[in-house]
């Protein structure tokens, strides 16, 4: 498969997954606000600031908005095209990637992402965001899930699928840590709210945003920091837990290279294998030893390194490009432009 096409599949799915997660997050926080009584603007800000921070766009937000009230944050995260990580932006990028590999997608798969794109840019969407947000977010989630469902039933289990699966699980692992990290920004931090009543409210919201509340009850964990972290980071079975996602990413990487699992043939496999071992043999003790936020931060750093290593190994291939300089005809500027273009998609 063409390197560029592999990269495109990978990002197409990452952007769909990102939009899906964002829709979950905003919806749950909105619901949560309905449960809370009389929030003054300071408390309100306390609620939203972490959401913006959790998507990593704080600077952009501050430069565009004066205050962090519900209306502003929702607008920023949902359909502000100036925010390249808003739901509307993500769907636009996913669709742009899909358009590039349109020749390899089933008609139904293309139609689903295209329909979702047309929806996010429609008057109807605009109206729903204002009048019935839960329905808007439900639409986004349902369409994202339909997209993945159609993909899983119409894409051959070849490299295209492996790169899609890889993108989906890395994005999902990243977003799960960011959901958990929301707690760190709340007054008192994760440890502070562990036993307190508002803590339960927050942890419940986080579980719900991952669609994990039911599964968590069956897991019989207590709704407190350690129980939730144990589930969302270390669960072997829950499809949004970090460990589960990294396990899947490891499987995909080894299917792509054909290297047996437990060994590695490139940096992406090595980084992933290392992280997987830490998760397989680790526990909540590790997560809280140096502070939850620091732990999650280090996980996110490792996801990024895996992403970079995948890009280096399969898309950039620097050692192979050097080989191509043999006849001296590849002009450096064209190569640089190509690399820059590929990297533009690499927004974490």
């Amino acid at each position, binding site marked *: 498969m063409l390197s560029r*096409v592999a990269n495109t599949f990978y990002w197409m799915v990452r952007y769909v997954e990102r939009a899906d997660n964002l829709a979950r997050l905003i919806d749950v926080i909105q619901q949560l606000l309905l449960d809370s009584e009389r929030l003054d603007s300071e408390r309100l800000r306390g609620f939203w600031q972490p959401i913006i921070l959790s998507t990593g766009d704080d600077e952009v937000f501050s430069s565009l908005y004066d205050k962090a009230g519900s209306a502003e944050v929702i607008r920023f995260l949902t359909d502000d095209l100036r925010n390249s990580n808003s739901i509307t932006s993500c769907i636009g990028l996913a669709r742009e990637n899909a*358009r590039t590999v349109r*020749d390899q997608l089933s008609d139904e798969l*293309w139609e689903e992402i295209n329909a979702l794109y047309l929806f996010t840019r429609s008057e109807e969407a605009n109206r729903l965001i204002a009048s019935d947000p839960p329905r808007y977010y439900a639409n986004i989630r349902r369409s994202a899930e339909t997209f993945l469902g159609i993909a899983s039933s119409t894409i051959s289990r070849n490299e295209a699928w492996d790169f899609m699966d890889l993108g989906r699980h890395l994005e999902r692992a990243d977003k799960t840590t960011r959901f958990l990290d929301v707690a760190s920004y709340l007054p008192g931090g994760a440890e502070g709210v562990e036993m307190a009543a508002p803590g339960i409210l927050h942890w419940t919201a986080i579980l719900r945003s991952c669609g994990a509340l039911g599964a968590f009850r069956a897991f019989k964990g207590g709704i407190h920091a350690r129980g939730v972290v144990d589930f969302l980071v270390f669960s072997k079975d829950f499809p949004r837990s970090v460990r589960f996602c990294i396990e899947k990413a490891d499987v995909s990487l080894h299917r792509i290279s054909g290297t047996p699992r437990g060994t590695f043939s490139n940096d992406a496999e090595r980084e992933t294998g290392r992280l997987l071992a830490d998760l397989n043999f680790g526990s909540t003790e590790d997560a809280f030893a140096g502070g939850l936020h620091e732990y999650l931060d280090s996980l996110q750093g490792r996801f990024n390194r895996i992403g970079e290593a995948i890009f280096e190994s*399969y898309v950039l291939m620097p050692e192979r490009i050097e080989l*191509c300089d043999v*006849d001296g005809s590849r002009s450096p500027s064209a190569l640089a432009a190509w690399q820059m273009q590929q990297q533009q998609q690499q927004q974490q």
Partner: protein
Amino acid sequence: MEMFKGYDPGKFYDEMFAADSAVRGHCAPLLRRFGQLEQQDFLTRKANSELYFLRQGITFNVYHDKRGTERIFPFDPVPRVMPADEWEHLEAGLTQRIVALNLFLHDIYHDQRILKDEVIPRAYIEQAKHYRPEFRGVDVPADIYIHICGSDLIRGADGQYFVLEDNGRCPSGASYLLENRNALKRAFPGIFDDMGVRPVDSYPRDLLNMLHHIAPRRDGDPVCVLLTPGCHNSAYFEHCYLAREMGIDIVEGGDLVVVDKFVYMRTTRGLKRVDVIYRRIDDDFIDPVVFRKDSVLGVPGLMNAYCSGNVALANAVGTGVADDKVIYYFVPRMIEYYLGQKPILPNVPTYLASEEADLKFILGHLPELVVKAANESGGYGMLMGPTASRDQIATFRERILADPRNYIAQPIVALSRSPTWCDGAMEGRHIDLRPYIIYGNEVKIVPGGLTRVALTKDSLIVNSSQGGGSKDTWVLRH
């Protein structure tokens, strides 16, 4: 019939109605079937066909629209119908023409007999904007230069067909031909019953067979790719569509690298050799080492591999010389010179501003003529004499005098019309026809072609960039 009540064929050649408003025999069954539709039903189905294009993403962007609104290319559901014998005539004429054009290109890039015999003045070739003298003596696979040709056909007031121009570089639009048929079949299945409409879906297969035919490596399965400028190109949908239908990879310039005069594509498993490139990038951009240095769309070193015979390009480099409207003037002479035959399809009468007598005539009749720049397309660089202002005419007079080699003039041909749904009524609109001729181990032409329609009342310009739409084209079996 309701929708056609009061339809006025006007003083033009109408594809569906004769001058006395009687329906032409081969259109009668179609008219009957449309007659059975209630207007409301017709409109619902028309809207469905539009939705099909929107959902398939067969759209273009509306500039200056921040939300990125997209529009579809207008599609008119009333097909253009062509009887079998009419098509046979066109097929024979187009085949004759592409064979002659290829002999001509081979000749001017080798011995230049046609110049030595003074059938075409040498200066016209050497001044042609897209002539590539540096490729003289380069052999191309199977001696084919134009593998895919889009020759635009028009019909005059008496129904006679003329060739308006040849597009021998990267003619586009074939995907619309195929998708128009799909959309019409979905929205109006009933009108196809027993009509004996010839299918068009062989196009991608014919295209792939041609690509295989020109592969330099004769052993095994050649690797063919489609080279696109990228997903921001307005024809990107078509590139994807054709690549998918053929089952070949669609590549951008950066996906290809040249090592030791061989072309490879960069895959996740390393470099893979490429044999044939169906390129949808113009000569100017295809290799920054040889042509435009600032092009980031192309592949550095590609021309080196091409001249060494290690990769085939469709179409070949340098075919643009045949698109030059001054060279077009000589195509009937090429047919006689190389084939010893009379041209089956005539050119539109053409005057060359670089010939003294013609120039005098052109300057004396500007308000009656259409003037065209020799190397422009898409309806640009044109003067439509009868509708032009005094200023426009004066401007063109200056331009012609300053650079006569670059201008031709033709009498205005009153293009034939076809009934078209326009805001609540059937009205006649002018149309042309772009067939797609494929030249591999044999000449293949998908029945019909893309019928383009000028949706603006009285307009003769069918280009999509200037308010044009399209129709399905039916060639009947009998």
